[in-house]
Structure formats: structure tokens, C-alpha cells
């Protein structure tokens, strides 16, 4: 029986990108339904009535919400290939800790960079660089956060790398200068087919960020 897999998504969303990359890693085909977040569809409101947010994975009609939860679901359901989480419970806990760290911290600082001015924006830049430096420590000398293989933390962070250029341009700073390891990790990831075919063009994201900032800040 063929699986029916749909994603309710918004193309620039780093969170939606996680789901696309995870499915691509597992070689699972899906239909992507683009949402207009200013005019959310009845399907989205029905599938995610509590948070009304994307991404939502709809698997054979059943909804799964929250991107980190969706990625674990994908890993557990299609558990016969490309494991995303390590098998050892301690290492799984570490991976989950860092995904949670990204979720708690990263977006808030990103918002200050593309949506803030003056001091708020400076604060956002400082915070974001601290977060990225912490993540560089976690990466260490490994090719991927998952070690030799692409893992859940790689999946969870790689979409964010499409935002680098746009944030640098509106924030007038260089991520590569302070976090060269992370930038080379991002380049390494983009050489993987599952990543390159799942992520939008960084230039398009940069354009989106510039336009979005104009709407918020003027």
C-alpha cells in the first residue's frame, strides 16, 4: 500500500526545511502544500488546531505537528534506513538536548536581526553568534553533528544555513569570520542530494528576508 505523505509548509521556514530534508534522507516521496500564513487554509486549521502553525506532516491522513517531533516520527516510522538518531540512549539524549537548544534560542535572536533596529539588532547578532559558537563546539572536528553520518542535529540546523546570507546583509556582519567551521559544515551538507534538492536557493531566501524586513521595519 502506498504511503500518502503531505507537508503543510511555508517555503522560507527553517522548520519546514527540517521535515523536507528528513523525508529526503529516508527516500520518501511527498506532496508539499504551500500555506499563505496571512490566510491560513482550513486544512491547516483542522490539522493543527492548537498552534495553527507549519510545518504539519500529514501521513495517510493523520497529522503530526511540531518540526522536532515530526523529524523523530519520520525516523521511527521509516526505521529501516538512514537512521537520524543515534542508537545509544545517552547519545540520543545529547542530540535531543542540542535540537531543543536550537529551538529555544536560535529563532529569537534571528528575529531580532531581521526584524530589529539599532540596539535590538546588535543584541540579536551577539546572541546568534554565541549560539553558533556553542554549536561549533558541539561539532568539533566531526564532518557532521551526527559524526560520520548526517544525523538529527544536522537535519535540524541545515535549513538555517540558507538564512546566513540574508541575515549577514541586513545585519551587516559576517558569519564566516566568526564561525568558519559551521560555514564549512553547511557547504559539506549542501553537497548531499537530500539537502540540495530539499532546500530553497539561498539567494531567494535573502530576497525574502530583505522584503520581510521592509514590511516590519520600513
Amino acid at each position: 500500500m502506498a504511503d500518502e505523505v503531505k507537508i503543510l509548509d511555508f517555503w522560507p521556514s527553517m522548520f519546514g526545511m527540517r521535515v523536507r530534508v528528513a523525508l529526503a534522507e529516508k527516500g520518501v516521496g511527498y506532496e508539499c502544500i504551500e500555506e499563505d500564513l496571512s490566510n491560513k487554509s482550513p486544512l491547516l486549521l483542522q490539522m493543527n488546531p492548537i498552534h495553527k502553525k507549519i510545518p504539519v506532516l500529514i501521513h495517510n491522513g493523520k497529522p503530526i505537528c511540531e518540526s522536532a517531533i515530526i523529524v523523530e516520527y519520520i525516523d521511527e516510522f521509516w526505521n529501516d534506513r538512514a537512521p537520524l538518531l543515534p542508537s545509544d540512549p545517552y547519545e540520543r539524549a545529547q542530540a535531543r538536548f542540542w535540537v531543543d537548544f536550537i529551538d529555544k534560542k536560535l529563532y529569537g535572536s534571528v528575529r531580532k536581526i531581521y526584524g530589529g533596529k539599532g540596539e535590538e539588532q546588535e543584541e540579536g547578532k551577539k546572541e546568534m553568534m554565541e549560539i553558533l559558537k556553542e554549536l561549533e563546539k558541539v561539532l568539533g572536528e566531526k564532518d557532521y553533528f551526527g559524526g560520520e553520518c548526517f544525523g538529527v542535529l544536522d537535519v535540524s540546523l541545515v535549513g538555517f544555513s540558507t538564512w546566513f546570507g540574508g541575515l549577514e546583509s541586513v545585519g551587516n556582519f559576517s558569519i564566516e569570520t566568526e564561525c568558519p567551521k559551521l560555514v564549512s559544515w553547511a557547504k559539506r551538507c549542501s553537497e548531499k542530494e537530500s539537502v540540495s534538492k530539499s532546500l530553497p536557493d539561498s539567494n531567494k531566501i535573502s530576497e525574502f528576508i530583505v522584503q520581510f524586513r521592509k514590511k516590519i521595519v520600513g
Partner: protein
Amino acid sequence: MSKEEVIILDCSLSPFCNRVKIALSEKGVSYESKEEDLFGSKGGKSELLLKSNPIYKKVPVLLHNGKPLNESSIIVSYIDETWPSSSPLLPSSPYERAQARFWIDYIDKKVFDVGSKIWRSNGEEQEEAKKELIEILKQLEEALGDKDFFGGEKFGIVDVIAIPFTSWFYAYEKVGNFKVEECCPKFSAWEKRCLQKDTVSSVLPCPDKIYNFITSMRKNLGLE
């Protein structure tokens, strides 16, 4: 045979610490609790805590044979995976596991913060927070449905995560002048059912202790 060393860097009133202790009790795992001085009256947070959780510097921390684990929901999942033979806390199907994780995330995002607003404020702000808490509990009642526990017939991971917050409800009720049981009877019934379990009642603090804690905090904030 080497002995398992399980230590929790703890705060007896914290619902986040208490969920970890309930999970360990459910698994029949013995542990040592080290109470942390979170408010600095006896020297502040220990070196061990600061070293074991350098990012957040928070409790609970689980030290399993010396290796630290942080973030209570992640710790509870770790406990379930490490001691799998007795009473699994997570359901077995990927879809039901995703649903359980969704409710854990919902509870973690909402319950304690909104509850804190109730005792950290007065007047209209407090009324808003009460309304919000009732809405959250009604949402959880819907998720519970007609089941005995969120885990179904058996006490499961969502029950472990949620039940410790209820020891704070008595304080919210006294400060906010309302009763959870009147607004959310199903939720209260679930709470009573959980409290009948030894693994829960042996861990949770007396609600009076929490009420006393909140009263002194409110005095410090100039709210009473």
C-alpha cells in the same frame, strides 16, 4: 558487577525535578537526590550543577554513572529508554509516540508559565492568567477523553510529565480564589487517580509547602 550510580541534582518543589523522580520510581530505579540551593540562601548553586549544566545552570540534572543529562523531558525519555524492561512510559507506535511528545511539548510550553502568572500578579492580570490556565486544562481534558490516564489504561509519559504541576494548583487556587475541580472536574479526577500511585505520592511535595513558598515570594514581590 558494577553498581549503577544515579544522582539527581534536585529541588523538592520543582515539578520538573519531580517528573524525573517519578519516572525513576516507575522503573524501580534507586537514586540519590542532592537538593540544590537555587535562591542563594546557603551559598547558591553547587559547582557540580554549574559544571553539569553549563548552558542553562538549571535543575534537574540527572547524573548516570557520572554522565550528566539535562532538560527534564529529555531526561524522562532517557530513563524510559535506558530501563526499558519495566513499565514502558512511551507508547510503542510511532504515531502515538508523536502524539505523546506533542502533549509533553504543549504542557511544557504552557502550564507552569501561566500558573506562575497567577501568583506573580493581582487584579486583572491575575484574572487573565486564571482564564488561560482553565483553557489549557480544558484542552488537556479533551486530550484525555474517557481514558483513565493520558497513556490509556496505564500511567504513561504524559501523565509523568503533567502530574507534578498539580501540587502547585492548591497555591494557585488560594491566591486566585478559584477551584480547578469546579472548572475542570475530569482533570481533577485524573489528578486523584494519579495520586493513588505510590510512585507519585511518595515524590510530590505537600501542597502546603508550595503555598508557603509562593506566599513568601509574593511578599517579596510586594503583592501581599
